[in-house]
């Protein structure tokens, strides 16, 4: 009887510890997922932060005006019928003052993970003779994107830095656990990173 009770106590303590670790990990998600923004002077800005909540268009224009890069590529996959957000982001950047000849839209196929499309992006960058790139991504994707993108780009001799709009980070991390879309993005990113470890095509 005493032995059973001891086992029950051990199981209860283990479960409680597991729960505490899970809760701590959940609230630590912004720290774990968001890397410090790293803006480096590059040949091209790869604008991949196009979503209903993003203000990255303005940030990209600011970087362009500061002379961080002379060319901008808007990256996107289809989100509805013949609808590529990159095309619209390009139009918006032009309306914000970027010369049309300095901004292009690169259409990518719908893919289960980022790593599937990265070789296409690297090829595009190399084909234009660019040797360095600044990738603008969603804040929650920044740490993972910098790890994965670095692997693909640096293998081909292209240096890469990863950044995001500070306003996006502020908006995303403000009471994020209380808002559906913010929690959805944090948890979705965590799931994506975890799954990528198990599937060869995404590593």
């Amino acid at each position, binding site marked *: 009887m005493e032995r059973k009770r001891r086992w029950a106590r051990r199981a209860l303590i283990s479960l409680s510890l597991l729960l505490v670790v899970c809760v701590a990990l959940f609230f630590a998600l912004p720290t774990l997922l968001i890397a410090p923004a790293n803006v480096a002077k590059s040949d091209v800005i790869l604008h991949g932060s196009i979503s*209903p909540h993003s203000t990255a268009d303005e940030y990209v224009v600011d970087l362009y005006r500061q002379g961080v890069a002379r060319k901008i590529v808007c990256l996107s996959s289809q989100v509805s019928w013949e*609808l590529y957000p990159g095309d619209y982001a390009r139009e918006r950047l032009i309306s914000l003052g970027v010369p049309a000849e300095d901004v292009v839209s690169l259409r990518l196929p719908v893919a289960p993970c980022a790593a599937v499309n990265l070789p296409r992006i690297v090829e595009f960058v190399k084909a234009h003779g660019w040797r360095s790139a600044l990738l603008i991504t969603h804040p929650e994707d920044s740490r993972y994107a910098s790890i994965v993108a670095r692997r693909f780009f640096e293998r081909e001799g292209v240096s890469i830095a990863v950044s995001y709009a500070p306003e996006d980070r502020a908006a995303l991390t403000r009471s994020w656990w209380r808002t*559906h879309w913010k929690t959805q993005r944090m948890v979705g990113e965590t799931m994506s990173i975890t799954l990528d470890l198990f599937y060869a095509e995404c590593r």
Partner: protein
Amino acid sequence: MVRDRAQAGQWLISHRVEKAKREYGMNGMNGTDGKKTGFLAPFRQFRFFRLFRHLSSSRARALLIVSACLFAGYFLTPVLLNEAAEGLIREDPLVKADVIVALGGDRLCNREKRAAELYHQGWADNVVVSGLRYASGFHTGEAARAYVVNLGVPAEKISMISETLNTRAEAKVLDGLMRERGWKSAIIVTSAFHSRRAMYTIEKTARDGVFHSSPVPTGYPEWEPYAWWSRRGDVFLTVRELVSWVNTLASGWQ
């Protein structure tokens, strides 16, 4: 192959259960011809169990139980995972309704395509599409509407619901639209993996309406419930849907 393991699991269960029924009767407790009876009687036929019949120590028994659980788990897990994915789907018989609703969020527009097919088959006289406005100024609902028009549905028969970030918000806006237009019934078109939760949410929100589910047919690359764990994209959708179910049932994030 993992896929074969699922089949092997199903075969093993059916084969052993049939054999046990033949030898011990339907419930394994009514043996009358000298055979052993009792709840565990059907399992005595397994050679694996007979190997341990002389072992009496509790440690050996524990080992036996753990081994049996691992063995069963190896074959049963794929069956259970397939069943869990199948459970996400709800498909109702088609009946004539006031409106066909293609829920938003499908990058490949399979939902809108299915809605247009149902419209042309005469299941309803109106179509509703859904979408979101992006910061760059475009609207995915407008693209969905254009696609449905392109498929031959008259523009005046198409309505759009907007700014619906999740299924619950979509259900609320749809409820309002149906009341405004006097529509009483709807065919809900969404992806198969999303169909049961979408119907649960909509039926809970719009209590006055009658809803029928007509999900987009399953099949890779969109989503395939069979052996979903072997494809990265399907794992993401299935696990996310299961997590969303927990959120929906707990009435959590909105």
